[in-house]
């Protein structure tokens, strides 16, 4: 039994439940605005924006259900809220626990450091999956009432799976920084900076004439292929998963090398 994993989930259960419910709720609320937007009110408001701005905010097409959801709900709000959970969880996973002085005791038990990192990663992944599943359920719940029938159940699932992997990527990055440095502050700061930077890259790379740059952004692999229109985008999902695994390997190796702080 992966005792460390179940224990990690148990200790973080309140935050996880809160974030899953919160992300789903805020997503459902915004998705529920779609009928008004489709009426053209939002479309008119956005008319004044420059084309570049509209592209950056993924607002070229606000009248289709997939276009609206891809720009507002899955473009900003839901991934950002979910990623905040991922970064916070990644920071607590190793560095936070270490600073709290809990790791000395844990690692004096028959549990290797690698095992601890892997279990904490597994808990992160399970939590991300739960948040994404909650969002998926919420979308299916509002779908009939909010005229979102154009987006299929599978397309929602594709986008939510990408959401889970996005959270795992940033969570693992934060975990890895914490595992390498032992500093919760460095992990939180690094994780948050990476989120902001890669979000901007994804949004602006096109206008800066550096479209290729956006491949560096997990956000691009998360939504660039428009899963809400085209379903599962396997190369994007594979890139996200691969990135998470590389970061996990970095976390395991660097954590195994260093001294634990008291």
């Amino acid at each position: 039994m992966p005792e460390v994993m179940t224990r990690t989930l148990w200790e973080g259960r309140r935050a996880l439940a809160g974030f899953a419910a919160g992300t789903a709720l805020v997503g459902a609320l915004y998705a529920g605005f779609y009928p008004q937007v489709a009426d053209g009110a939002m479309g008119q408001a956005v008319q004044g924006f420059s084309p570049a701005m509209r592209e950056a905010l993924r607002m070229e097409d606000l009248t289709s259900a997939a276009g609206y959801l891809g720009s507002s709900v899955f473009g900003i709000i839901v991934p950002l809220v979910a990623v905040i959970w991922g970064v916070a969880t990644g920071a607590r996973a190793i560095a936070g626990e270490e600073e709290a002085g809990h790791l000395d005791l844990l690692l004096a038990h028959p549990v290797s450091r690698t095992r601890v990192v892997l279990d904490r990663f597994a808990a992160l992944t399970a939590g991300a999956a739960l948040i994404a599943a909650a969002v998926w359920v919420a979308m299916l719940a509002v779908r009939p009432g909010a005229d979102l029938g154009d987006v299929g159940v599978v397309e929602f699932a594709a986008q939510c799976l990408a959401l889970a992997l996005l959270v795992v990527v940033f969570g693992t990055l934060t975990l890895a920084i914490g595992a390498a440095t032992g500093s919760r502050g460095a992990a939180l700061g690094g994780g948050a900076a990476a989120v902001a930077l890669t979000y901007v890259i994804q949004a602006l790379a096109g206008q800066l004439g550096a479209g290729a740059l956006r491949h560096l952004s997990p956000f691009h692999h998360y939504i660039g292929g428009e899963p809400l229109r085209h379903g599962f985008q396997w190369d994007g999902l594979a890139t996200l998963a691969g990135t998470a695994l590389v970061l996990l390997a970095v976390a395991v190796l660097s954590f195994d090398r260093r001294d634990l702080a008291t």
Partner: protein
Amino acid sequence: MSEVIRLEKLTKTYGRRRGLAGLDLTVGEGEVFGYLGPNGAGKSTTIRLLLDLIRPTDGRALLFGTDCRRAVAHLRRRIGYLPGDFTVAPRQRVEQCLDHLAALRGGVPRARIDALAGRLDLDLGARIGALSKGNRQKVGLVQAFMHRPDLLILDEPTSGLDPLVQQTFLDLVREAKLAGQTVFMSSHVLTEVEAVADRVGMIREGRLVALDTVAQLRDRAAHDVEITFVGPADQAGLAALPEVSDLVVDGQTARLRLSGSPDALIRLLAGHRLARLRVTEPDLEHLFLAHYRTDDTVEASRA
């Protein structure tokens, strides 16, 4: 007797600061070892090296004959560890905390946890965060002892415990010894460990400055004796005894230091009428340090 702990030139430096400087030490199976030293001497550093929580700059540490950097999970199965600063998540209950730690070891009989908690007067239903420092320390003791490990590594186990609980703790150590378990425990003072320790070692600034059996310390220990005679003190008789030193006579009262057997003194006194006799327990701590002061300076000048 096989070696449970073996330190070979164990060295740890933190940046330019010295934690441990080439420590050599062995602790045998079934032994209770008291590891003494002032603040910052390197006690916790040694212990955390043994548990592979930190890595040596040089030298190595072996547990049960295996380098403690290897087969880590396997070695830790045989160890019970009480950290110098026992901290666990404050929101859980004592019972949850112990169950989790037991699960990491593949389970511990419930009765064992209940028995330990009962003896230490620890409330299993209390929240960790609501416990006093001493009561939190008891949680640490229970988790270290509960799985009856072959080796107990205890970093300042008595810190925060009231005298009564300290006695219970010493009983637990005695029982562990009877069961063949090995105990390595650190402390600031000899008095806390002398009752149970077979051997004591003292480190200062990362070096071992003293190492001895408690039995030998006791043998060397001098008692301070104060005798009040009815009538004049028998100064000549006392001074003639080889075991007596530092004799001071003040009218009817004689003060002296007695080393070795009290037999000759008692025989001499039997021929006199006494008003009062007081023998003071030897201060092992004092003796321990005094005995090694010379070695200490040798070490220091060599450094």
